[in-house]
Each structure stands twice: as structure tokens, then as C-alpha cells.
């Protein structure tokens, strides 16, 4: 679960000049704090990541490549990336529409919608899986109706995308919403006073303003989706070569005590999500994206 908005700042971080010249009242106290912070983050984050890297590459690059290119591993990675891409595309469209509706329109149920958008951040992802099976599972009315029409959702690929859509719904909405809110409504009004249709106004006036925010939100959901486990292990059915995603494959390798293979898959997943995070960071630093945090 992840927050996009600071409590008191309403999502806007005011850059204050950092004071570098202030003399420390107690140098040893400052050194103590600094050392504690470095040790804490080093032990909690750097050391575990280093352990994965070491185990993954311990037997040489050849062994690493062998582990990663196992047919099942390749299929699992492909499925994870493919499902994340499909989810990201749908989420970008629906998230933007949701944000737009929430900011620009007044309609019954608006307050409720605004509140439940954050639900996926709050609800444990395993619970998400249980909830989706409770509605779309093969034993339910909705599920059997769908299966009869040749569109099984749970224990099939659509279920994986559905779970990812649930988990990642807030990312695009909550990144785009403040930008639409801050954009001048008068520009939109000017456009359609001049005769532009609603769609043209949206495409030519609104979209360029919120484009970077949509991109940031989409990339955040993509990064989040790569590692998703709790909802997917329940929903996917985990059939090797068909609905087995990379995190679930990794889990099986860990359970089977295949440390090398598990480390290798971990390295690939970590590289993918760190690259995405780095790209988001770059996008924000260039000042083109809104300041949103995962």
C-alpha cells in the first residue's frame, strides 16, 4: 500500500532551500544521527540486496543465464511483463477518465467513488485475491455465467490482469487528479466556446497538460505490478507455462530450496523494477512530471 499525498501538503512538496551552513550544536550528536541513519538503511536495504546479487552470480554468468533461460522461467517472466503491460494500458485510460470525472463533474456517488479509489492501497493484496475469487470464481453465479460464455476469469490469464487492475487502480487516478485540479478550466471552456467538440477539447487541451502525470502514474503501476504476489497466487491458478507469474515461480524456487535459480529470477525482477523506478525519478527531476511518490 502506497501513499501519493503527504498529509499536510496536499500532495505538493514545497522545495525549501537546504541549509548547509548551519553549525551543528553538538557535532558528535550529528555524527551519531548520521551514522545511525547510514547503518539502518545499509543493514535493512543494501546488505539484503547484496546477498541476492552475490548468490545469483556466485556460480558465474553462465549459471545465471542458464537459470534465467529455463523455459518455465522465461514463460513466467513473459507472462508477468505481458500482464503488467496490458494492465498499464487499461489503467492509464480508466484511471485518467476516473480522475477527470472526479474533478470536473458532479454526479451521484462521486464522494463514494473518491473514497473507494484508495481502497486497493488499504486492503492487503491477499484479501484482494480472496475478494476477486468470491465474485468471479468458477463456483459463483458471475463466474459460472462468464465460464459458460467461454470467458473464464479466475484461474486464467484475465484473472491476473484483473487482480493487477485492482491493486494498481489508485496510481494513475491519484497522480493525475491533482494535475487536472490545478489546470485552468478556462482553457477548456475557451476551446469549446470556439467550437471544439468535447473530445477535441480533451485531446488538444487537457491531454497535453496531464500527459506527464499519466505517464508517471502508469509507470508506477507497472513497477508495482511486476512484483505483485498476494492477489495473483490466489487468482491465477499458477499453472506452469500458462498462468504462473514470475513472483509465484520465484516463490516455488525458494520453497524448493533452489537458491541459485531463485536468486537469478530475483535479480531480473529487481533490475526491471529498479529501472522503472529510476525512469520515474528522472521524469520527475526534469520537472515534467508531478511530484508523486510510490
Amino acid at each position, binding site marked *: 500500500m502506497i501513499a501519493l499525498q503527504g*498529509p499536510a501538503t496536499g500532495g505538493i512538496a514545497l522545495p525549501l532551500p537546504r541549509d548547509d551552513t548551519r553549525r551543528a550544536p553538538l557535532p558528535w550528536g550529528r555524527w551519531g544521527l548520521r551514522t545511525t541513519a547510514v547503518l*539502518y538503511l545499509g543493514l535493512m536495504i543494501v546488505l539484503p540486496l547484496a546477498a541476492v546479487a552475490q548468490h545469483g552470480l556466485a556460480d558465474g554468468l553462465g549459471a545465471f543465464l542458464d537459470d534465467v533461460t529455463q523455459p518455465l522461467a522465461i514463460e513466467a517472466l513473459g507472462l508477468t511483463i505481458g500482464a503488467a503491460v496490458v494492465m498499464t494500458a487499461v489503467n492509464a485510460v480508466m484511471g485518467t477518465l476516473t480522475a477527470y470525472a472526479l474533478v470536473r463533474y458532479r454526479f451521484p456517488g462521486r464522494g463514494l467513488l473518491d473514497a473507494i479509489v484508495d481502497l486497493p492501497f488499504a486492503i492487503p493484496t491477499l484479501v484482494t485475491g480472496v475478494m476477486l475469487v468470491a465474485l468471479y470464481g468458477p463456483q459463483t453465479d458471475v463466474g459460472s455465467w462468464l465460464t459458460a460464455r467461454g470467458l473464464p476469469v479466475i484461474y486464467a490469464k484475465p484473472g491476473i490482469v484483473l487482480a493487477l487492475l485492482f491493486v494498481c487502480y489508485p496510481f494513475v487516478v491519484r497522480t493525475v487528479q491533482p494535475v487536472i485540479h490545478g489546470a485552468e478550466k478556462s482553457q477548456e471552456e475557451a476551446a469549446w466556446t470556439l467550437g471544439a467538440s468535447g473530445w477535441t477539447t480533451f485531446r488538444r487541451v487537457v491531454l497535453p497538460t496531464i500527459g506527464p502525470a499519466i505517464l508517471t502514474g502508469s509507470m508506477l503501476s507497472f513497477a508495482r505490478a511486476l512484483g505483485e504476489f498476494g492477489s495473483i497466487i490466489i487468482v491465477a491458478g499458477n499453472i506452469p507455462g500458462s498462468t504462473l507469474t514470475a513472483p509465484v515461480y520465484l516463490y516455488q524456487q525458494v520453497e524448493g530450496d533452489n537458491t541459485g535459480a531463485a536468486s537469478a529470477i530475483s535479480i531480473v525482477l529487481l533490475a526491471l523494477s529498479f529501472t522503472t*523506478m529510476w525512469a520515474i525519478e528522472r521524469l520527475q527531476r526534469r520537472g515534467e512530471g508531478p511530484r508523486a511518490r510510490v
Partner: protein
Amino acid sequence: MRASDRSMKWLIVGLVLLYAGLLLLGPLVAVVTGAFAEGAGALVRRLSAPDAVHALKLTLLLAAGATVFHAVLGILVAHVLVRDSFRGRRFLDGLVDLPFAVSPVIAGFMIILLFGRDGWLTPLADSAGIKFVFSLPGMFLATAFVSLPFTIREVMPVLEQHGHDQEDAALTMGASPWQAFRRVTLPGIRWGVLYGISLTFARAIGEFGAVLVVSGSVAGLTETSTLFIFRSLDERDAVGAHGMALMLAAVSFTLLMAMELVRRRGARQMTKGEEI
């Protein structure tokens, strides 16, 4: 509004409500129905069984532990990142976000690598007599890892906005750094801290993947609420699975509502502060 724009409005609104309904509201209603499928009595009986109570207690214990841990160290790190300046500060700042991008399964796996057979830290843990794999300390570490960024990331902007003028004034008037922090800075950032620790707690309650890998999930021993749900599904205990899922969803939802309240109060307090 022109007729075409009005129809576009209702098209967008209709589509969005349908989508959110099918994706969020429908499954929520389904799990509530599932939990009460055999009546409220059966649900209460299932959730008051010893294994369920133990799982819930363990989840709260781990979440509370992680929250206290991060409340102290999170504020410290946020303070260092905002107020201190040294080489590598930016790198440290970047590290904080990494747990967001690490799959929970990897988080659990890393603890096994460090503390399992031939792990880097196994000799150290052995000499201290602490067992990490398949036991509570490891589960605590797993929970702490996945919930690490929240407090730091919520406290940092509030600390920046609060500035250090008042702190400096207190120091000039003879307060010790600790007094200045406790009496001046901490009250100023309390809403940010409260928001951050609520997020940490909510995230910690729901942790599944990392704990699953580390714990070995022994019922009544190292089984948390999420692991309880996982086992109930496996044993086709629908009331247990749906009931506990509903319980966790309710706790998280209440926290979310409370946080929204905190956020609003914090925002109000901030505007008042700006007027002075």
C-alpha cells in the same frame, strides 16, 4: 453545457462508475456475502477459534513492532535526510524508496539468504542465540523491510515545510538539541508522523508474501492473519477465509478513514500556521 457535452459527461461518468463497481465494489460485496454465508454465528465461532485468535494477535504484534521500530528510526532518518548534508545523502535518499520496488517474495527470500544455511549473518545470529528463519524475528524483519519507506516519506516533506527557525530559536534560548526536537519540532510535525505510522501499520498488517517465505506458517505458532487466510483457502474453509479477509479489510478500511481525517486536520492546521 451543450447536448453533446452533456452526453459525453454521462458516458464518462457511467463508464467510470461501472468500472469501479465491477472492480472494487462488487468483490467487496461478494466477500461480505461469503463471510456471512453460514450466518453470523458461524462467522463469530470461526474467528474466535484459537488458531484465528492467535493469527490475529500475531499480526497485530508484528505490525505494532514494525510501526514502533519505524516511528523511531524513520523520524531519525527523515531528520538526517532533511537537515543534514553530507556526501552520499542523495544516494541514501534514493535507497529509501527501494522496498516499494522489491517484490515481497524477494524480501522474504533475502532474509533466508542472510540468515539461512551458510548465510552471511548466520554465525552472528547463532552466537546471539537468535533464530530468524521460520521464527518471529525473521517475520519481524520481513514486515519491517516492506513497510520501511512509509514513515520516512511522510515525515520528510512535513519536516521540510516546518523549517528550522523555531528549532534554532529554542537552541539560542538554551534548549538542548533533544529538548528542541521534543518540544518544538515533534509537535510541529505530529500530523505527518501520525499519517506515516498509520500507513506503516496498515502495510504491515497486510503483509503476506515476505512472511509466507520466512515463517514456515505453522498454525498457532508462526501463522499470521494473511497466512491463516491462505491455509483456510487450501482447506476449503470458506467462512474462515472470507471472515478473516473481511476482518483485515475492515481494519484497513477503518485506518484509511482515520487517516483521511488526520490528513484533513493536518491540512487545516497547516493553513492556520501560515496565517500566523
